[in-house]
């Protein structure tokens, strides 16, 4: 189709033609077009269907405030719904489709909703779909969801990539219109680091849409010249296509840069968009203003738009929406639109409700008149005007520009809950309570003239950066005063649309008032005014004004709703950045990871760590078979396991022992050098925090180990205690978790294996149970050796600098070959510690005390330690307190499910009769049946009792016997061997 509505002029590049499709039809436009301007140039005004009533809609604006012209861009997995055609930059090959329709855009079957509008008013759903209750989920909601809405998701993974980034500057200027450009120029010339961000792909703001002059050049040329000057300055970063979406605490702003949205094919590895976090000392908000419409019957037909949008399409894009246009305005700016259109050869009639305006113009002016209705099924064909004398006249036209005045863009001034101030002269809210460091200039501050914008921009930069001295003179520019008579809506019976994206009418606001929802926040939620993706940028003021009128209040008394980030919708992908899929979080690999992969290990995530879960061998049919083999091999000969992931904290200082005495509930002050002790940490409230060991390497030097899961919380807790609770102690902490590769070598042959590796004597006499020390291995490498055991076997943990971890694991396997040393993973580790009755995260679950764990006597009464006092609370020390016990099934063939609850052997089963719960369960290959650890009321005195284990989740009931939690070697002979 030819570009039949393309007219002379504009800033498009007519030498570059771009082909695109809309709903499958091929069109062409030019470089510099938006999708909306290109469609309008091709005579396409109908671009979408409304949210609720499926009414035909076309663009209402030429900017990001657009409520109507929402389309889906691209296709397949790249499909993006709810994209504003008014900001989508045209590129060759662009593919767009309309959305929210059943059938074609021009014949939408769901337009039947429009016929039912008398029933579908505000509050309709709340009142109607309450009965019968069961129908909501299965009938009402699916039907409503199908009938109402906007675009749809592809339900495929988004193939685009997004980045997140960080920028720093002295001054962030938001908006590159005359005020923003002048602010950036003033700041940049002073040497400040400046970022100038604008949501448009062409900087210049309204200057690009006007015919006025700045100095002795056109506004467009002045903007281009200023942008060029800024671009040449090394201290300036120009960021077109960048929307500042939020003003956050401490001078931090969020901004989305659309890096690749205007490219047909995304570049490999390049982001489509970047979500920037901008750290700035000061900000100049020069976000301009938005022209607001006037509500009247059927004011939503394609072809009805703001007057300034008609002006933009004509001046910037060389598009006449129609050759015959009507301007409906209550202020003098509407005449600027009329003049510009008239100068382009478009026949114009101005309808102005003010009776006293001059009609002596080059075009027709109907003073004291109002547009009362429009006609046209899929687009505007006629407007009906009520003249000053009460008579009516119908004007044939395809474009109607409406100007109800201008609303300064105060959004970012309110993101930290600042409230704007009402300005009678503008009949609009202007910024008042600003975030720290923010200055506002130009139309955003209520200075609607170009001269005011230039002066305001210069002044804001001066104030923000405290620049002294005289400033260069500003170029001359128009300085027209604002002349407006507030006029919000035309009284009448037809449906007059306020919020065109959410289909909210003047009548809905009346209904809200009538039903008592009069507070502005109630009005918003009852009618959904301003709750669509455009946040009511063109709608809210009208709604407030009408509510004020109905309530008999002034508009500022009604107030405004809160503006919240983001300023315009942001793709979820931009918030995720690169943190998706396999890169959702970083991985931590153990020093033996490469070796474990070679062995075919199956890995499991433990926080960010990837730990070997088990090492399957050929012929093994399932994981349990593998784990059983690993456990038996370790208990019968020797096994090796990477335990690097356990947290390690280096504790040094003259008061290190006293510090640990404070941290642990059991005593550490007298621990001898060269010895390790098991330690239990309590929270302030007496509940167990974590357990581990502390090894004393010197009088003033300990190494504390934590569980893998609590490595960070424990380190944080220790730092808190050091800095805040005992600041006078001489103690220094630093994490060494990753600095040392640490392996557990366990089993009756553990010593024989390590004797081949460690250079020193490690006999039972020289290095007994719970010994520790610095040793050398393999001919001189520094290492640490600890005689500790989680498995209950004769065991050591050996640590070397991480770089040697891979080599040490291979050396251990080599040394252990004659004993058929077996690598084991976390599953076997878990089985062995349950067999031994050792607690871990399942038991240290944030609700258990030392007494629950059977360690009540460990809480020393001879010293003060964190949590000791509160652990003696009466409520934590009742007669039937939970105690750690072992559980085994009466029938050895039955399994016992973890998480199940303990109930009496007979009688009803309910929560009131709950006796305790199972925390850990496994199959013990050594015992030949399942076993479990549990907490049982008064458990220590119930050994041998028969009970039931009940798991309503898995529908299992198992008869069990209560026993000692130490299933293997209760006397501890193995680990002392």
């Amino acid at each position, binding site marked *: 189709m030819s570009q039949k509505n393309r007219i002379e002029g504009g800033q498009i590049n007519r030498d570059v033609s771009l082909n695109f499709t809309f709903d499958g039809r091929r069109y062409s436009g030019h470089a510099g077009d938006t999708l909306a301007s290109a469609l309008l140039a091709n005579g396409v005004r109908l671009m979408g269907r409304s949210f609720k009533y499926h009414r035909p809609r076309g663009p209402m604006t030429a900017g990001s405030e657009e409520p109507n012209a929402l389309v889906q861009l691209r296709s397949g997995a790249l499909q993006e719904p709810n994209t504003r055609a008014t900001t989508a930059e045209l590129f060759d090959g662009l593919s767009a489709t309309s959305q929210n329709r059943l059938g074609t855009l021009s014949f939408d079957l769901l337009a039947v909703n429009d016929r039912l509008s008398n029933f579908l008013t505000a509050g309709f759903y709340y009142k109607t779909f309450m009965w019968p209750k069961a129908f909501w989920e299965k009938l009402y909601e699916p039907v409503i969801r199908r009938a109402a809405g906007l675009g749809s998701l592809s339900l495929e993974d988004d193939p685009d*990539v997004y*980045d*997140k*980034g*960080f*920028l*720093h500057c002295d001054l962030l200027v938001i908006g590159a219109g005359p005020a923003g450009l002048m602010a950036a120029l003033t700041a940049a010339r002073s040497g400040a*680091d400046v970022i100038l961000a604008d949501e448009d792909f062409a900087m210049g703001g309204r200057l690009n849409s006007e015919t006025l002059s700045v100095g002795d050049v056109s506004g467009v040329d002045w903007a281009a010249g200023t942008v060029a000057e800024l671009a040449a300055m090394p201290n300036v970063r120009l960021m077109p296509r960048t929307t500042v979406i939020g003003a956050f605490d401490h001078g931090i702003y969020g901004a989305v840069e659309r890096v690749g949205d205007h490219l047909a094919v995304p570049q490999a*590895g*390049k*982001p489509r968009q*970047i979500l920037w*976090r901008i*750290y700035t000392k000061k900000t100049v908000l020069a976000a301009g203003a938005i022209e607001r419409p006037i509500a009247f019957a059927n004011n939503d037909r394609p072809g009805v738009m703001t007057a300034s949008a008609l002006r933009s399409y004509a001046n910037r894009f060389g598009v006449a929406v129609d050759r015959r246009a009507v301007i409906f305005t209550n202020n003098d700016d509407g005449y600027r639109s009329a003049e510009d259109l008239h100068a382009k050869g478009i026949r114009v009639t101005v309808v102005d409700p003010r009776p006293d305006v001059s009609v002596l113009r080059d075009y027709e002016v109907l003073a004291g008149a109002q547009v009362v209705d429009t006609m046209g099924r899929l687009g505007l064909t006629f407007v009906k005007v009520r003249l000053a004398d009460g008579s009516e006249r119908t004007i044939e036209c395809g474009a109607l520009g409406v100007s109800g005045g201008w609303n300064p863009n105060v959004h970012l001034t309110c993101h930290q809950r600042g409230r704007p101030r009402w300005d009678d002269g503008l009949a609009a809210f202007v910024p008042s309570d600003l975030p720290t460091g923010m200055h506002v200039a130009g139309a955003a501050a209520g200075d609607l003239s170009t001269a005011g914008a230039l002066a305001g921009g210069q002044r804001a930069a001066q104030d923000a950066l405290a620049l002294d001295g005289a400033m260069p003179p500003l170029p001359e520019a128009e300085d027209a005063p604002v002349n407006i008579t507030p006029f919000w809506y035309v009284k009448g019976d037809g449906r007059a649309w306020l919020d065109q994206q959410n289909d909210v009418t003047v009548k809905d606001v009346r209904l809200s008032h009538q039903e008592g929802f009069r507070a502005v926040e109630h009005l918003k939620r009852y009618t959904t005014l301003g709750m669509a993706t455009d946040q009511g940028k063109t709608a809210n003021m009208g709604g407030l004004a009408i509510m004020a009128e109905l309530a008999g209040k002034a508009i500022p008394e009604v107030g405004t709703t809160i503006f919240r980030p983001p300023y315009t919708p942001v793709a979820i992908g931009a918030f995720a950045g*690169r*943190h998706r899929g396999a*890169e959702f*979080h*970083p*991985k*931590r*690999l*153990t020093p033996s990871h490469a070796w474990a992969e070679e062995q075919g290990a199956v890995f499991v995530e433990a926080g*960010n*760590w990837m730990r070997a879960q088990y090492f399957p061998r050929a012929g093994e049919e399932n994981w349990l078979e593998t784990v059983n083999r690993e456990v038996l091999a370790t208990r019968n000969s020797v096994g090796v396991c990477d335990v*690097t992931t356990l947290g390690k904290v*280096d504790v*040094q*200082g*003259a*008061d290190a022992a006293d510090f640990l005495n404070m941290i642990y509930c059991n005593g550490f002050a007298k621990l001898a050098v060269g010895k390790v002790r098991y330690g239990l940490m309590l929270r302030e409230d007496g509940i167990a925090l974590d357990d581990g060991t502390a090894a004393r390497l010197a009088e*003033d*030097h300990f190494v504390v180990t934590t569980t893998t899961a609590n490595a960070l919380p424990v380190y944080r807790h220790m730092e808190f205690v050091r800095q805040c609770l005992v600041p*006078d*102690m*001489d*103690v*220094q902490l*630093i994490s*060494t*978790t*990753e*600095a*040392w*590769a640490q392996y557990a070598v366990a089993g009756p042959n553990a010593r024989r294996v390590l004797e081949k590796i460690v250079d020193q004597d490690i006999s039972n006499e020289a290095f007994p149970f719970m010994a520790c020390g610095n040793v050398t*291995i*393999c*001919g*001189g*490498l*520094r290492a640490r050796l600890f005689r500790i055991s989680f498995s209950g076997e004769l065991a050591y943990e050996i640590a*070397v*600098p*991480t*770089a*040697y*971890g891979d*080599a*040490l694991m291979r*050396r251990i396997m080599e040394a252990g070959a004659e004993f058929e040393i077996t690598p084991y993973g976390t599953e076997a580790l878990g089985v062995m510690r349950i067999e031994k009755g050792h607690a871990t995260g399942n038991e240290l679950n944030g609700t258990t005390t030392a007494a629950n764990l059977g360690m009540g006597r460990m809480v020393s009464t001879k010293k003060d330690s964190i949590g000791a006092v509160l652990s003696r609370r009466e409520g934590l020390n009742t007669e039937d307190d939970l105690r750690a016990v072992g559980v085994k099934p009466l029938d050895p063939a039955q399994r016992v499910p973890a998480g199940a609850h303990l109930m009496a052997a007979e009688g009803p089963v309910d929560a009131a009769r709950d006796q305790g719960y199972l925390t850990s369960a496994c199959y013990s290959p050594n015992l030949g049946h399942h076993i479990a650890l549990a907490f049982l009321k008064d458990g220590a005195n119930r050994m041998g009792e028969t009970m039931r284990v009940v798991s309503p989740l898995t529908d299992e009931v198992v008869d069990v016997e209560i026993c000692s939690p130490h299933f293997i070697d209760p006397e501890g002979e193995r680990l002392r061997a």
Partner: protein
Amino acid sequence: MLELTPKPAIDTPDQTIGTVTIALTDGVALASVAARKGQLAACEKVLSARLGAVPPVGRAVDGTGETCFWTGPEQWMVSAPEDGQHVLADQWKDALGDAASVTEQSGGWVVFDVRGAGMPAMCELLCSVPVRRMETGDVQRTMIHQTGCFVICREAGRHIRILGPRASAQSLHHALITAATAVA
């Protein structure tokens, strides 16, 4: 003779993407130094004697064969080329005595050197340090790909050294490559 050979955190060659070269720098010995209670002056005296100056907040100081940077109140990190003897921490402990706690940190970190004209743009996609404002010798602790890292400016505008957690070397390297590709 030592039977074991050390292994770098990841096995990767230097990569040049656009104008940025990313290199794993293996064999950097590291030791943390924290002044003991009331021993700051004594500790600083040793630092000054060995390095020529005490690294102020957010700065690194190059001594003879050693670099030291500030890591926190009364805390520093010393680095030197690893000569295979693993004695950096011991040497500093001998020099500092009871004036400071010294902890071996060589195994805890992976070191990447990022050089080239595109480095600042790449760094802006990685972390919140004000890379374009950093002068040679500036150091900042920051998060890169959710890991705690140090960024040391080795040459303003052209070369940064990143110290990251060794266990996450692979993820961190991937993040560096991704960012370099994005700005190439």
